[in-house]
C-alpha cells in the first residue's frame, strides 16, 4: 500500500518535472523572439543599422496593415500559395510516377541512371527562362518551376524506397500468383508510403524556392514579385514584409504536411 502510494507520488513528480521543462523551453523561445524584434526596432531607430536597408518591425507592421487594407497582399499570398501547392503536388506525383516506371522496368532504370544523375545535379531554376518562353509568362510556367525543382530528387528517393521493400513481401504475393501491377499496389507502394510522405516535407521547401524564383522572373504577381518590385524601387520594407509572410506560410505548410504524416503513419 505504502510503496504503491510512493510510486504514484514519484510518477506525479516526474510528470511535473516534464511540464516544468516544457515551460522553460517555451519561455526561452518567446524570449528570443521578443529580443530579436526589439533589438531590430531599437537598432533601426537609433541608426545603428541602416534603416533604409533593414527597415524596422514597426514600419513593416504599418505596411502590412496598409497592404491588407488595399487587398494586394491577400491577393498576392493567394497566388503564390496556389502556385506552391500545385507545384509541390505535381512534383511529388510526377516524381513518384517516374519512380514507379523505373521500378517496373529494371532495364529502363539502368538506361536512365546517368541521365537522372545529370538532371539531379543540374540547378533546375536555371531552366526558368526556357520554361517562361515555352509556357508563357504566367501561372503555368511558375507552377512548372515549383514542380520541376522537386521531381528528380523525389524520383531518386522514392525509387530507392521501392527497391528496398523487403523481397519476402513480394515472395508472398508471388506465391499467390500476383502480377507485377498487383505486387506494386499491395506491397511496394504501401511499404514506401512513409518515404513518400517524408519527401513531401522536403518538396514543400523546394517548391517555395521554385515558385519564388519563377515569380522573380515573370515579375507580375505574387510574393516573389513583391520582393523583386521592392528591390527595384528600393523599398526594403516591402522586401522584408514579403520575406516574413513567406516564412510564416512556408512554416504553416510544413506543419500541415507534418500533421498529415503523423495521421497517415499513425500505426507505424
Amino acid at each position: 500500500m505504502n510503496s504503491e502510494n510512493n510510486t504514484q507520488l514519484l510518477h506525479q513528480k516526474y510528470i511535473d518535472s516534464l511540464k516544468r521543462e516544457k515551460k522553460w523551453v517555451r519561455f526561452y523561445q518567446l524570449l528570443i523572439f521578443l529580443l530579436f524584434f526589439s533589438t531590430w526596432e531599437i537598432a533601426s531607430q537609433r541608426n545603428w543599422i541602416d534603416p533604409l536597408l533593414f527597415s524596422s518591425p514597426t514600419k513593416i507592421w504599418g505596411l502590412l496593415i496598409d497592404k491588407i487594407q488595399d487587398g494586394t497582399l491577400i491577393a498576392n499570398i493567394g497566388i503564390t500559395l496556389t502556385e506552391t501547392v500545385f507545384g509541390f503536388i505535381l512534383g511529388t506525383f510526377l516524381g513518384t510516377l517516374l519512380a514507379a516506371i523505373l521500378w517496373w522496368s529494371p532495364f529502363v532504370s539502368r538506361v536512365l541512371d546517368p541521365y537522372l544523375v545529370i538532371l539531379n545535379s543540374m540547378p533546375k531554376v536555371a531552366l526558368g527562362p526556357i520554361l517562361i518562353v515555352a509556357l508563357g509568362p504566367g501561372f503555368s510556367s511558375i507552377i512548372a518551376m515549383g514542380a520541376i525543382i522537386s521531381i528528380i530528387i523525389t524520383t531518386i528517393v522514392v525509387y530507392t524506397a521501392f527497391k528496398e521493400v523487403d523481397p519476402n513481401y513480394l515472395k508472398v504475393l508471388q506465391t499467390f500468383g500476383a502480377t507485377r501491377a498487383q505486387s506494386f499496389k499491395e506491397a511496394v507502394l504501401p511499404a514506401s508510403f512513409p518515404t513518400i510522405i517524408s519527401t513531401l516535407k522536403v518538396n514543400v521547401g523546394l517548391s517555395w524556392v521554385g515558385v519564388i524564383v519563377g515569380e522573380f522572373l515573370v515579375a507580375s504577381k505574387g510574393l516573389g514579385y513583391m520582393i523583386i518590385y521592392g528591390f527595384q524601387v528600393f523599398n526594403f520594407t516591402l522586401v522584408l514584409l514579403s520575406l516574413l509572410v513567406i516564412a510564416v506560410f512556408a512554416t504553416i505548410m510544413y506543419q500541415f504536411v507534418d500533421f498529415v504524416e503523423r495521421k497517415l503513419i499513425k500505426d507505424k
Partner: protein
Amino acid sequence: MSFLEITNIHHTYFTKTSANTALSDVSIQIEEGEFISFLGPSGCGKTTLLSIIAGLIAPTSGTIFLEKKPVKQSSHKIGYMLQQDYLFPWKTIEENIFLGLKLSNRLNDDTRKYTLELLQKMGLGPVEKLSPKQLSGGMRQRVALVRTLATEPKILMLDEPFSALDYQTKLKLEDLVSTTLKAFGKTAILVTHDIGEAIAMSDKIYLFAANPGRVHKTFIIPEELRNLTPFQARGHEQYTKVFQSIWKELESLEFRE
C-alpha cells in the same frame, strides 16, 4: 505417375564471377497426403528446391509435374509459408487472410466465410479487424497459415516456418499445423535444419548433402511415430532411435567433406 513428380532437377546460380551448382540431379516422388521434410545443413539447396517446386524460380533443367501438369500452370494450387509470418503491416488481419483470394479474383461470400472459419479453427478469436502488430509471434504465424490455406492449395511448402518462434510456441504450432494439415488431407513439404522437428512432423525425410546440393538419403518414419502428434512423437522411444541414425548420417557427411 505420382501426385508430385520431381525429375532430374539441376539448378545453377550464375554470377559474373562464378557459377554455383545449388542442386544436382534431384528426383523425388511425393504421394497425395504425405508430409515430407527436406533436412540438411545450410547451403544444400533445400530452399532452392522448394522455390522451384512452387514455381518461383525456373530450374536450369529438369521437370516438375503436379497432378500431371507442369507447376508453372498450377501456381494457385501451391501454398507457401516463409520463415517469418510476413503479414502486411498496413493491412488488417482480415485483409491479410483474404489476400490470396483477392489476387486470384476468387473473393466471394463463400470463400470469405470459409476463411473466417479457418481463423476460428486456428484458435484465434475475433482478431479480424486488428492490425498484425497487435498479435504475438505465434498468433501471427497462425494467421499466416490461414492466409496460406485460404486459397485451398493442394500442396503446402513450409520454409522453416517455426524458426523465428520461441521453443514453446514452436512446439504448440507444430502440433496445430500437423493436425490441421492431416484433417484437411493436405500434402506438405517442410524445409528445416532441425532434425527433431523433421522426425516429429513427417512421414518421410529426405536428407540433403551440400556441394552440390543433392538427396543423400531417405528416411521413412516408423508408423508408430506418424500416428502421434509431433509433441507426443518427441517423447516416444522410436524418436530417439531415428534421431540417432539421422545424426550419424549427418556426421558422416561432415567427415567426408
